[in-house]
Every structure is written in structure tokens, then in C-alpha cells.
């Protein structure tokens, strides 16, 4: 049997809003069909992700909860910056300084300290494992 009391959606239907602050119940097919809204109105909010983080953690999925907390920080980071950071974290793409800049941007501009820490931790490992742009170029010679 499905234990619907534990269903997070049911618990939060009333209070949940989209990233743009639209209450869940105001999102209707009629309004969309009439031309209202854009994808931002169908984007998850920081609060909803933090709530999902709590649920995951309480269920025993600690790392998933941490991921949702990082995700909550990324809600307001634009798509192109997200893609830029992802690209920067791939091997041999960036220098230590560039990763440091990405981390700073996350921390200062987007108030994303956990994500910033993630990038900084990557930078440390990339330095020691030779995964930075310069290291790669040197090793290729």
C-alpha cells in the first residue's frame, strides 16, 4: 500500500511556489493555454529543494540531501553559467586560478557556498592529480 501521508507533495501542495513565486495551485493548463507564463514559472524553487533535501536526509539518503542543498543554491544561477561551470570542471579545461574564479563567483555573486566549496575541492584534487589545463599541456609535450 502507498503511504500517502508521507507523500511530500501532499504535505506541501498549499505552501509550495515555483521559482518565480507562483503558488502551485495557480499553475493551470487554462492559463498556459491562454499564453501566460514561461519555463521559469515551472522551475523548482530553492525552498522546495531544501524541503526535498530534508526529506531525503530523514529517509537515510544523506548524500542525496547534500546534492539537493547544492541544487537549491543553483536555482538562481543562469543556464549558461551552469554550463560554463560544468565545462570548467571537466578534466584539463581550466587552470587553478580559473576554478578559483568560478568558486568565487558562486560564493559571492550567487550565494552558493556549498557549490563553491565543491569547485574548490575539485581544484585541490585537480592540482595534485594533474588535471588542470596547464598540467595537461605540459604532460602532452
Amino acid at each position: 500500500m502507498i503511504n500517502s501521508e508521507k507523500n511530500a507533495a501532499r504535505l506541501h501542495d498549499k505552501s509550495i511556489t515555483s521559482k518565480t513565486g507562483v503558488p502551485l495551485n495557480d499553475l493551470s493548463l487554462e492559463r498556459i493555454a491562454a499564453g501566460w507564463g514561461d519555463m521559469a514559472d515551472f522551475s523548482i524553487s530553492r525552498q522546495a529543494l531544501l524541503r526535498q533535501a530534508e526529506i531525503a536526509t530523514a529517509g537515510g539518503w544523506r548524500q542525496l540531501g547534500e546534492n539537493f542543498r547544492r541544487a537549491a543554491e543553483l536555482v538562481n544561477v543562469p543556464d549558461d553559467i551552469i554550463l560554463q561551470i560544468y565545462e570548467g570542471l571537466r578534466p584539463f579545461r581550466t587552470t587553478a586560478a580559473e576554478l578559483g574564479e568560478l568558486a568565487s563567483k558562486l560564493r559571492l555573486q550567487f550565494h552558493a557556498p556549498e557549490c563553491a566549496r565543491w569547485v574548490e575541492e575539485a581544484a585541490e584534487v585537480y592540482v595534485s592529480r594533474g588535471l588542470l589545463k596547464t598540467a595537461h599541456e605540459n604532460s602532452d609535450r
Partner: protein
Amino acid sequence: MSQSRRFAVRAAREINKDTFIQEWPEAGLVLLGATADPHPSLRLENGQIVEMDGKPREQFDMIDTFIACHSIQLDVAEEAMAVDSLQLARILVDIHVPRAQVIRLMNGLTAAKLVEVVSYLNVVEMMMALQKIRVRRTPANQAHVTNRKDSPALLAADAAEAAFRGFAEIETTVGVARYAPWNALAVLVGSQTGRGGVLTQCAVEEAMSLRLAMKGLTTYAETLSVYGTDPAFIDGDDTPWSKGFLASAYASRGVKIRFTSGTGSEALMAHANGQSMLYLEARCLLMTKGAGSQGVQNGSISCIALPESLPGGVAAVAAENLLAAMLGLEVATGNDAMASHSDIRKCAKLMLQFLPGSDFIFSGYSSIPKQDNMFGGGNLDADDLDDYLVLQRDMKVDGGLRPVGENETLAVRRRAAEALAVVFDRFGFPPITKAEIHAAETAYASPDMPDRDMAADLAAAERFLSGPDTVLGAVQALAKNGFPDIAQNIFEIERQRVIGDYLQPSAIFTGRFDVLSGINDANDYMGPGTGYRPSGARWEEICNIPQAYDPRLPRHATSAATLAVEECGEAQPGSGLEVVIAVGPAFGTRLQQTVNDLPLAEVLAQLRAGIADEGVAARVIKIYRTSDLGQISFEGSRLSGSGIAIGTQSKGTTVIHRRGLLPLNNLELFSQASQLSLEHYRRIGRNAARYASGRPAEPLLVPVDNMARLKYIVKTTILHRHETECVQSGRPAELLRIKTLEATSV
């Protein structure tokens, strides 16, 4: 040198097209116990791992560092590592130890320890463990929907059918990469036509995949591949941190993800570091968990033939599925690539996931014919769907699919293609024609689809990707053009992003958009009588495959000839040269055809014609007191003037009997009625007449068919049951007058 013809036959069998090799541990071609595999160990100092699996922190590679930082739960690690691996293996299958308690300990184990634990289990125990500790209580299945032409109408129709058949997730990909936004759109529209709430994804390069999700065209992604050694991971152009960031990025857009890993990938890339496949997979799974992925697809995936070439390969693939479940990860358990040439071996391998159930039994069942599968072709495909549905029914196992009828399926396919045509129109794409819609409805595969102008299509797809249009335009177009239900389903899929419940472990949607996940549908298996078992309406659905018929209703084939008889009073003992044909109680009344659909009118006509060929008279009587052939013919011979009788049951089983023989003895018995033709019945008539007139008769030889019992036992049982229901004990034999007289020529 002599050659065995039997060896030659076996050499040509499908199994011998598969490749088998001996182990080569240095190349990573070994499932377990390579010499370079470490022994389990863990040492903590000041809340930090300083030694893991025999390696001090200073020597950690990239993956070790990630696992030590993120994957192993330190609060339980020392306690868990201190438990004997055999004991941990035993609690995996111990029905008295709750799942949560098992998972808690597993969260503290290193890769080497995890592998040591599963190495104690045989495959049956692995299945027991998977049944007990997989995340979601209700099993589900995922489909692959692709086609070689990237035909949008066919993608929509196939996605609709897959959804209609019960797949909870649909994965597509592209032939030409630039089609990605179109394919994602076609599969989204199609899936929501077949059943609301089916999750969809388009497997393409990571950055593209993320862009599709951001446009609202996909709801999940599973192509986040991880590898168990540093060089393999880096060859894959990622690191655990880049993958972990992607995981967060997807979640931030309300998109479900799972990672991908699988035994053999490192050996394939020549970067196995001399370590076993299962040890490297355990590292992948720890990274998956550490990065915060809710789940993984594993089970060797596209490398499946590599572990299968080695001893213990299929068992190890089951072990890797189990390792994922042990870490609390949703697991989509492979079966998505061709595992063998041999159907026996393919199916045997499948059973290790199918029988225990998993979160997704296939991480891509090829719901389209394999020729159109752009992932390379699943272990089972569209042609095997009926087999799969029968397996569910046979084993009383919920494999995630349901039987569907042809007419409803065609209607759903057509509607999906029509809906996509409306969406194409809205976005100004080159139109989907009526001919395409019609072809998509009935197609076997993409060669049945009309060709499109690929250059124009790709230009439109690229404009769509870079332009402002999103899935919301599709919702509007569908709502305004006669597809409000599909619009509603797509709208609801998008709305669910705002809630995010389906980001939780192992989440799927029901048709009413209720989430089933590890949070609200947690696996509660605790031994017999607990956990998920198909029951009620779902079991009924699994039972009612379209081929199954109601045995209570006699089934008449198309033949027109109906026997009409008139009863002429109690049959009396005869005299003179005659053969009595004694028929069963349902003959020509309730039953009109033999087990192999010969009309009883013609069977009787041939028997009589055969007797007449030899110049002997025939009398037909009906036995009411029994349906037993021995008794029918015994009674016939008792009444026969010559003492010779032919006994015939309505199912066609026939015997020639002579008065004085015991009921179970006979002159000739034709027990395989399915093998009898009308010509045989004529010759039976002749032989009986020759016995009656004392002339020699050569016993009739009927061909033997190995499959006869398999093919006819059910029908035989049903026909005999009907005949027996017509028995009237105590009623004497009736003399019959036959109204339909003439035999048709044979």
C-alpha cells in the same frame, strides 16, 4: 579422424556464436579476486579517513579521494567495517533483519569490503537480497524508443505505445545528434499520449542533455557515466566532481537523474589497473552515491558480452545490481544490450533481475524492433513482447508491462502522431504529413516511414534549440487543437518539476501523477507474505493476455460442416457382417470438431466410407454412459454383429476393438488424434471392415510429432471435459441416423 554429427549440430547452435575466454586478471578480464584487488581496511583519524582498503591517504588517487570525502558514512564506518563480511552477507538475506538496518551498515563500507560481502552470495541469495533491499516496493520497467531515420511521427507513435504498455520511463537517443530536441519533443508528446506521468529522457552529450531538460523537453537523465579508475574516468572526459556538479545542476532544474556504470568498461578502455570488474564497479557505485545521485543504471550495460565471456560473469552482473541496492541507490538493472545469441542464455540472464524485481528491470527494454534501436539493440525487443507478457503470467511476477489489444494500440499510436503534427505546425517545423501519420500508426520499423527532407528538418531542430520556444508552446497548441488530455498530461509533467517529489530515490509516476518512490513506497519485504506481490486488479491484468480464451466455451473453427444426427432409439445387438462405429456422448451435439479441427461430420463420413470400401455395413451408435474410449469401444464391440467396433471420442481419438478383448486392449489404437487426417479415418474404416470380414489388415502407422502433446494437451483436456459433461450414466447406447450423409472427397 571421425566426426560426430551431434557435435556438428551443436557447433552450429546460437550459443556457439558467443565468445568465451579464460580469465586474464592483469587486463582486468576477471570478475572477482584479481591480484591487484585490495583487502578491506579503513582507518579514521580526527573524523577523516587516513587509510582505505590498504592505501594511506597520501597515495589516494582521484577516485579514492572522492570516495573518502563523500561516499563512506563516517558515523557508521568503523562499526560496519568491524562486522565480519560473512555476517553482513547473511543479513542481506535474513528476513528478520529489516532493510533499513542492513542499508545503514552498508553505508559505512569501503569498495573492497562491499565486494567481499557479495562474494559470499550465490545467485539465488543475490536474488533474495535484491528482492529484499531494492529501494522501491513496486517494480517498474524502462523502454528504449528510437529509430534509424529519427522519424518524429514514428518516435511519437512508438513512445505512445511504450507508455500504453506500461513502461514507467522511456529513453530515446539520436541517429544524428542535431535531432536531439526534436526526438525529445516527439517522445515527450508520444509518451503523454500513451499514459500520463511516464518519465522521458534523450541520451545525448551531457551539455546538450542539460539544455533539453532546461527547455522542459525531458524529465530525467541517466547518461551520467562514471568509471572505476582515474584514467578511464578521464578518458570519459569527466571527473567525479564534474559529474557531481551535473547532478546538482539537473536537480536545480527539477530533473531526475541517475548515473551509469557497469562491469567491463574499464577493461574495454584498457584502464582496469589489473583490478577485477566487480571491485571497480563498487568504486563506481560509491562515487555515484557520494555525488548525491539517487540511483544508477548498471549491470554491465553496453559491455554485457564482456563479463559474459568470463566464468561467473552473469552472477557478477547480478552482484553489481545488488551492490547498488545495498548502497540505497535506485537501480535500473541493465538488460538493455544484447547479452547472447542464444535465446536460452538471454532469458536465463534476465531471470536474475526479473524474478526478484528491481526498480527498473530493464534500463531500456527495446520496445521497438532491434533494427531501429540506436542503443545497439536490447536483450529483448518488440518482437519478444508477447514472450515477456507470458513470463509475467507464468511466474506471477510483475515485470512492469501489461497486455494490450491491437485496436487500442493503433488508436494510441495514431493519436500521438497526430498530436505531434499539431505541435510541429505550432513551431513552424516542416509538417508531418497524413501519409507519415498513417505509416507511423501501422509501421513495423522505420523503413516503413516516408523519407523526410533531413536538411530542412535539422535546420528547424537547431532553430528550435537556440530559439525562445519551449515545451509550453506544445502545451498551448495541443490544448487548442483537440488534444486537451495530452496538453494536460504534459502540463502536469512540467508542474511536477516545481514540486520535485520525483527527484527522490526511485521515483516514478502513476497514471494519476502520484509519485511512487523510496519515500512513500519503500520496499517492505520481510519474507513470505510481505513485500510487493502482484494481486487484485494488477494480477488480473497480467493474467488476461489476449491469447487466453475461456475454456468453458467450446471453440469452433471456421469449418462449416456440422453433423446432424437423429436418435433412433436404444441400439440393439446386431447380426451379420457389420462394423459398429461407437461415438462419444458429445459427438455432433456439443462438439463438432476434433482436437485438430477436423469436422466430426467428415470424420464420421470417412469412417463409413472406408467400411463401405470393403463391402461391409456400418452402424453408428452413440454411447452415453461413459466418455472413456476403452469403454466406448468395448460397448460398441458388444453390440457389433461381427464383434468389431471403431470407438471414437469427439476429440478424435480412435480405437479399433474386437469383442472379447479387455476394454483397455485393442486391435489398433490412434491415441494422438492431432496427427490423424481424414485419409487416416478412411483407412481406419477399411481396416476395421477387413478385421470384421476376417481378411488381413496392415496396422496403420501414424506419424509421431514431438510437439503434439505440447500443442494439444490443453485442447484435449477441454474437449474431454465437455464430452464428460455430456455423460448420462445409466442411459443405454442410442442408434444414430446421420443426416449429413455424404463424405467430402479427400
